[in-house]
């Protein structure tokens, strides 16, 4: 039995809850899997994300992203498509890609890593996520649930 860890990353700021909404929707739809499953909601985990990647066979990670695309658009990133903007690496703002890049340099990335981004618009502190973000989160949750079900067969 594989260990699967699903990580929804976000903050309590409007659309930036996209990762949290996805794992909430996943939990709501009663995800079924023969794998050992752990689902976490994380608030800007920084370097602590690295430790969560260890001892998992499959990590599914969902975060908000801004690339100028339509809000609600879902993208999946393969490792060779990770943006290389680590020049700005900072102790104040260690982002998800920084942490993943460090984990890759350490050689501790899990055998399978599915990295999803949900395009967002506004990240207002204390605000609700937009309808298009909530719909995208539900759609991505269904997709992940189907992936897990397929892998269990």
């Amino acid at each position, binding site marked *: 039995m594989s260990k699967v860890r699903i990580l929804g990353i976000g903050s309590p700021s409007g659309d930036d809850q996209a990762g949290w909404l996805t794992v909430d929707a996943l939990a709501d739809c009663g995800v079924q899997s023969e794998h050992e499953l752990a689902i976490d909601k994380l608030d800007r985990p920084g*370097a602590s994300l690295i*430790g969560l990647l260890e001892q998992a066979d499959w990590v599914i990670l969902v975060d908000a992203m801004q690339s100028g695309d339509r809000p609600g658009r879902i993208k999946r990133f393969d490792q060779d498509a990770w943006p290389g903007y*680590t*020049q700005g*690496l900072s*102790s*104040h703002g260690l982002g998800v890609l920084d942490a993943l890049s460090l984990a890759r340099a*350490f050689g501790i990335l899990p055998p399978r890593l599915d990295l999803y981004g949900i395009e967002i618009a506004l990240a207002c502190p204390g605000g609700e996520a937009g309808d298009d973000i909530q719909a995208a989160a539900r759609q991505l949750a269904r997709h992940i649930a189907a992936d897990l079900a397929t892998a269990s067969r």
Partner: protein
Amino acid sequence: MTERRSVAIHVPVLARVEGEGALDLRIEQGDIAELRLRIFEPPRFFEKFLEGRHYSEIPDMVARICGICPVAYQVTAAQALERLFNVELSPWAQAMRRVFYCGEWIQSHSLHIHLLAAPDFFGCSSAIELARIAPDEVRRGLRIQGLGNELMDLFGARSVHPVGVRVGGFHGAPSLAHIRDMREKLRAALPEAEALIRWAAAIPVPQDDQAFVSVATQHPADYAIERGEIVTSDGLRIGAEAFDAHFAERHEPHSTALFSTYHGQPYLVGPLARLNLNHAHLPGAIRALLADIGFVLPSRNLFHSLLARAVEIWLALHEALRLLDGYRVPDSPWVPATPRAGVTTGCTEAPRGLLWHRYEMDAEGRVVNARIVPPTSQNQGRIEEDLRLSLLNFGLDHPDDALRLHCEKVIRNYDPCISCATHFLRMNVARI
């Protein structure tokens, strides 16, 4: 005959410095004609936000000034207000304030060493590059940083903008079981911290020798962190209330952060200033280790700052372990406070150096006005002075990239937190 160069260089981005700033360097006929650390990040008006706020809100509000050193802001504010309100902390709260603060030193120093400063000395442009060639060392650094965060979490409920401190003590006390677990982790981390010191000591750094005044707090009982008088390496010893009589802030047109001077001169705050002034207060074990690696204090080489941070990580682990020995859950983690009107000051040692607060309070316990002098603004003048001296010592005829890297290294020695917001420093060099 060698011609003295007059060259113009434009280096648009200097990474691994906290906040938005720029460095302007103009070299004319082989001499530095202009050198300015230009901070253009907009002012954040935190002191103004505090006006009219009740004292009970202050620790949580000032924590928002910095995501890396919120404990420093909380503890300094609480110390100042407790002084005004004649609140005497219980021995438990006094000790746990220091433990809480140790967590912040551990995480802040470890992040700076491994993510910001060390890559320079290995020819790497980022911590990710460094992680490829020194994965065990960077992972060790992140483990130590994580432990610092856990320690902050224990007393503050979270490590970023914690909420544990209140005037009079803490809102809550960790359970004995949690403390037992933490003690085991601290004990296990001490050998890692010793290995970190030996690794840091082995990193080749430029030999530099500069005269500067070190400023830090000092306390007779221990290596000053959360309490103490302000002392300087030229013999001044004052209470926090006398800060304004000796230290002045002034505005420079090229910077939105204030410049501080001590008797009209730049001065150094931070880990190396602390070690220079307080090395006699280090525990015997660490003094023996420093003798073994040949780290002689006081030091006039700012490139020893990385090693100084490593030493303070060991110290903070040791202190937290010592103070948590025999831990008992107190009957109450706080004592009550009764507000009164007046002016009060406080000072502690933030990871980056001396942090000074001044509050005028009304009889209802509301802030009339506030002043906060953070370490980076105090170091700003010293950074400019250091850059000038270091560049002259390094030699201005080096290629532009080498000059730029040297400037970056010098600036990063101070771990400047320009505003705790963004992460780029632009540098413009002109040679004419």
